[in-house]
Every structure is written in C-alpha cells, then in structure tokens.
C-alpha cells in the first residue's frame, strides 16, 4: 500500500488543466496556413507531390478531410505553406475543412449547422460507441487516450461505452472496408434516437490514402448526416475533445 501511495505521489498531477490552450510541440502538424500570394507554379508542384490529392491544383487550397499531414508540400514550398501547431481543426461542415490560400482564421464550428437536440440533450453527458472500420489503430489509440489521465474528457461527461444501446452516437475511424460495412450499419441501427455521427481521422472522412481502394465500401458515410469531422493522421486527442465540446457548446 505504501509503495502505491509513493508511486502516485511521484505521479503527481498529470491532467491537462486547459484543453483549449495546451501547448504542443511546435512541429505538431495542425491547421495549415497557405500564403495568399502563392504562385500557380508552386501550387502545381504541391498538388503533384500530395500523396492523397488534398491540394487543389487550381486554387491551391488544402482539404483537411483528405490531407494525411505528411508536410511534404511545406518542405517543397517553405515560406508559402506552413503547418501550424493549431490542433483545433475539427468542423461540423465538410466545406470548412478546405483551407484556402490567405486564410489564416482559426477553424470554428458553424453554430447554425448544429442540430438543436445535440446541445439540448448531450451537453451534460455524451456517451459514444467507437466503431473501427479498417482504422490502422493509431486513431483508435488516440480516442482511447482522450479518456486517459492526461486528457480526461470524462470531466465533461464524455466517454466511450461498451454497447451501442448505451450510446448517444458513434465515432467512426478508418476508411470503412467492405468487410466492416455491415457491422457498422448494425452498430448504428442499435443506437437509440436521437444520435450523432463523428468521423475521427482523415481515413474516416475521405478514405485518405486508401481513397481509391476497391476493398472499401463508403456508402454509409455518403448516405448519413455527419455531425462532426475530426481531421488528423491520427486525430489528436486535443483535436477530438475540442471538436466535441465545441459541438456541445461547453464553455
């Protein structure tokens, strides 16, 4: 017993006090900033190297729903493209994930697009069922970490539960393989109404690097309303939790 108490004393306080302002490594790849004066030649080169087709070769915008955050476009165009360590990159609309040249505003949720019942019912308590649909286990581990002693999303009443019957919504990771399509559908059906869908990680949002694979079946994503998109490769716990509490209107 004494040994445990000693360990816990050395353990100290590990929780992140303010999840909105926590500083992360300057190298962390978060919201990109693209120079307003980036020239067509540089855009073309960046679009050509992008492994997941996230860069529009005409406009030079970067789609965070497709980006795998490899930073190679920045290495190619230093000074013109810069991945900042701003981890608050979740959005409730797909379009807002497309970052245009010259756009340096932080990403914030579109309040008008949040369904009323989401805030009314889930602000005090949100129970989620996670479905890994061909995720590579990095997003799954980050979602697991969102509830650990450091990030502790339980402080907001948000947690993952064991059964879809106990859940208010699902969090999907992975590009959705054909082999998981039915299980995903069944899990969703098992969640009582009203319910929400969150996509965590670039693979879930667009298929990411697997986008063109014939082994996927993304019809579920295409035919359901998505309440929150959380980009990342994988989605960082800070990105996930901030996205969810912004959606719920938690101050």
């Amino acid at each position, binding site marked *: 017993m004494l*040994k445990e108490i000693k360990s816990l004393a050395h353990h100290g306080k590990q929780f992140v006090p303010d999840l909105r302002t926590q500083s992360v*490594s300057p190298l962390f790849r978060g919201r990109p900033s693209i120079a307003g004066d980036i020239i067509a030649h540089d855009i073309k080169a960046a679009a050509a190297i992008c492994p997941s087709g996230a860069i529009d070769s005409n406009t030079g915008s970067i789609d965070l729903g497709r980006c795998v*955050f490899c930073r190679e476009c920045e290495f190619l165009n230093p000074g013109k493209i810069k991945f900042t360590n701003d981890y608050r990159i979740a959005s409730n609309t797909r379009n807002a994930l497309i970052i245009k040249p010259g756009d340096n505003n932080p990403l914030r949720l579109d309040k008008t697009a949040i369904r009323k019942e989401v805030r009314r019912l889930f602000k005090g308590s949100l129970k989620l069922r996670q479905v890994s649909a061909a*995720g590579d*286990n990095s997003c799954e581990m980050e979602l697991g970490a969102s509830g650990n002693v450091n990030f502790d999303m339980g402080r907001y009443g948000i947690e993952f539960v064991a059964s879809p019957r106990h859940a208010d919504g699902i969090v999907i990771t992975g590009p959705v393989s*054909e082999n*998981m399509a039915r299980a995903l559908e069944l899990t969703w059906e098992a969640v009582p109404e009203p319910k929400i869908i969150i996509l965590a990680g670039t693979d879930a949002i667009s298929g990411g690097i697997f986008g063109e*694979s014939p*082994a996927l079946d993304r019809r579920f994503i295409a035919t359901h309303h998505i309440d929150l998109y959380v980009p990342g490769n994988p989605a960082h716990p800070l990105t996930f939790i901030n996205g969810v509490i912004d959606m719920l209107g938690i101050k």
Partner: protein
Amino acid sequence: MNGKTYTALKNNSSPAGLKEIPMLDYETFSERITGSLKDEARHCTAYYGAMISGKLTLICCIADDRNSTIEVFAYEVAEGAGLRSLTPGFPQLHIFEREIHENFGVKFEGHPWLKSVRYPHNRADNRQIMDNYPFYSIDSEELHEVGVGPVHAGVIEPGHFRFICNGEKVLHLEIHLGYQHRGIEDLFISKNNALQRCILSESIAGDTAVGHALAHSQLIESLAGIEVCEALQIERCIALELERLAIHIGDTAALCGDVAYQPGQVVCEALRTKVINTTQLWCGNRFGKGLVRPGGSNYQLSRAVAEEILKLTDDIEKRFGEITNSIYSSPSVLGRFDEIGTVTHSQGLTIGTVGPSARMCGIPRDIRKTHPFQYFRNYPVEPVVLEAGDVLARGMLRNLEAKESMRIIRELIAIWSDKEQPVTKPVYDYRLKPDSFSLSLVEGWRGEIFHSAITDSLGKIVHYKIKDPSMHNWMALALAVRNQEISDFPVCNKSFSLSYCGYDL
C-alpha cells in the same frame, strides 16, 4: 534437381536477381521446407504466392537464425494442380497455405483447416463471404458457444472471437479476422509513387508506424542501391526503441486496467504519454508518422531532441521501475497473471510464433540479434527471454524489454553524439534494380516485420508482400485460452496485443 535448392539473402543487404531464385519442383520444394523446419533455429518467416509474368509462383523464405541468412526458393504452380499440404507435419505453415489458397484457389490436400484468412476483395472464390464463415462447432447439450465482435466493448479494432465453453471454461477459441482488409498490398503496386508508398507503410498498422515504415524504407534502399549514413541508422534504431518503449508501457497500463489495478494503469498511461509526446517533439507526430523515409530524413535528430530523449529515459526509468515493482509484487495482480494463458515452449515452436510471443516461452527469436539491420549490425542486442509462457511472463517480458530499450536508447545516443553528421533528405525519385527480388526484416515491438518486393524488367514493383508478426501469433492466443476461465480472455488478449489491421492488410 541439380545445383542449389535455395538462394541465401542477408537482411538489409543487396537484392537477388529473379533468375537466381531456384525454381524447384514441388517435391524438392516441400523437402526443402520440411527439411529446414526440423531445425529449431529455422522458421518460416514468409511463404506466399505471387503472379510473376502471368504465372503463379510460390515463394518461401526460411530464416536461419544461426547464420543470419534467409533462404529463398520458389515453385511455379501448374494450372489447376492440387498440392500436398505441409501443415500436418509443420503447423507453423497453416496460415501461409490458407492465404495462398484464399488468394489464388490453390488446393492444399490434407490441410486440416483450409479456411479463409481475411476475405480479401480480390479473393479467388467470391462465393466465400464473411457472413457464412464456417466456424468450428460441437453438437452438444453441455457445451455452449460465445461470440464476441467484430465490434468490441473497448476502443479497439474489429475481429470476431468464437468460444466453445464448458460452463465458464474455454475449450476452444476460433479467431475470425478480415474486417480490417483495405487491399493495402495492391495499393503498393497501383500507387506507383514513392511518397504514397511511405504513407501506406505507416498505415499498415498505425501502432507500428516506425517499424513498418522502416521495413519499407530498407526494402526500397536495398532495391535502389541506397546506403544511408551511420548517424541515420542510429536515429532509426532510437525511433524503433521509442516505439517499443511506448507500447510496452501502454500495454502494461492496459494489463493493469484489466485486473482493476488502478495505480498501475494510471501511472503507466501517463508515462506512455510522456514517451509519445517526446516522439511528437522529434517529428510532430505521436506515433512517429513521417519520421522514417527511404534514403534520408525530414527530421534529423538534433542535440536538443537527443537531450530531451535522455531526460525522458531517466524520468521513465525511475518511475516505471517504481510502479512495476508494485505491480509485480501485488498479490491481486499476480493472482490474475500467474499461470494464466500458458503457451508452452513446444507449442510456440510448433506454431512458429515470433517476437515477444516467442521470447516469453523460451524461444530466442529477435531479428535485432538474429538478422540484424541498421545500426544493430554494429550494436549487438541480447534478447530478453523468459520461460513460463503465461500472462505473467508476457507482462514481465514487456517490463524487462522496456527497461532494455531505455538502456539501448541511451547507449545509442552516446554513440550517435560522436558520429553526428548531416543527414540527407529523403529520396523519392529512386530507380529500382530491374528483375530483382528483395526482402527486409525489422524487429518491431510485436516481432518480426517482413516486407518484400519483386521488380520487372523496367524496375517497376510488380509484387509487394507484407507480413506482420501477428500473422504467426494469433494462433498463440487461441492456444493460450484453452482450459482457462472465459473471464481470463481479456487479460490474455491484452498480454499478446496483436494487430488486426496488420494481419488483414
């Protein structure tokens, strides 16, 4: 058959010409396999089918741990031929024959368990579908079946476990996977682009991003004739050990969580966070995605980061040492770990288990020592080997390996400090040697990762093979839970911590 019956390759070295790989008849091919596998120092590291110039060729790679060579030989399958299965004599081959059967429709006569491996999108027989997987069952009034998954209670990957139980006791467990199949091997060929392949390699199993990216980079460097400097080789070894350290600590937390030993869980969770945040400080990603690239690095290790890593190991060593002392002396933990989920030495050898799953039952397989790569060629690693084969041995192995990784990291940083030199940028416009075969092995935290590729006359990759260590090791979990209480399944599962997506590809 005249002449050589195999070509010997070294890990992390030059490729072989395709023509140098002996094409044997099936009789010689099988004798070559069975003869080799009688020797405990040899195991089948990979055995798979590849379409080469329109012909199905079976390629077998036997790792000889005594002289650090991998023996490669092949057999061209005649149209519609049924082959004699080698699994009855050497069960470690079961999964490889099943994969060849599923992918190409080759019949292995006498195979006791010729079932689907993962239901790949391009399987030979599309009538085989997930929903009617032929589970083993027993018609009995006394026994009952328990099905778990594919969606599990925790935040983990999908897979289906089917138990046959007598009361609370598990008689049999069948593990049915494939839900995670993304067609990744084919994408390595269809995406004829170096950077895309790097991103893919980091996504084979995102919890082993460094291990798989390193296996891929080594393979490309071998085929492209690229040598990387010693400083970069050391950096890669440090990154690999950081990955091992983080996972072993994280799995220790998970093991404690499963037996409701809360201090062990929370302390280890926080320590894992510290390790992966240091990886993030180094390369901007907690899993090391982006850190390993062929031919060079975008994130050369700096003095400042090396200092942080040293500080980290000092801190972790103290606190992890303290908490593991508590964990492994707590009767409530030991009662749940000791003599639970035992895999014996002979079972381990029979099923050809690798990595920690082998080392926990007295099989000293560790690619860092037996087929060294990168700087491990100059810096010998002595694997930690335990004998008991139970959950306690697997937990202890992680504990000891984590501590060993910290020692290795410190020593490697000391060596690196004397060798520091500018590291080149990654090479994405490589040209690969035409008509060649190459392979690459890395000891990831789960065990040996195998990547291999075949190029055509233009140097284009026409075949890419990935083997995650979980391919060997899932059978160990199935054996471990036999005659255990079903309530011991979670702790058995965590103690192996195998990959679903690495297996499903």
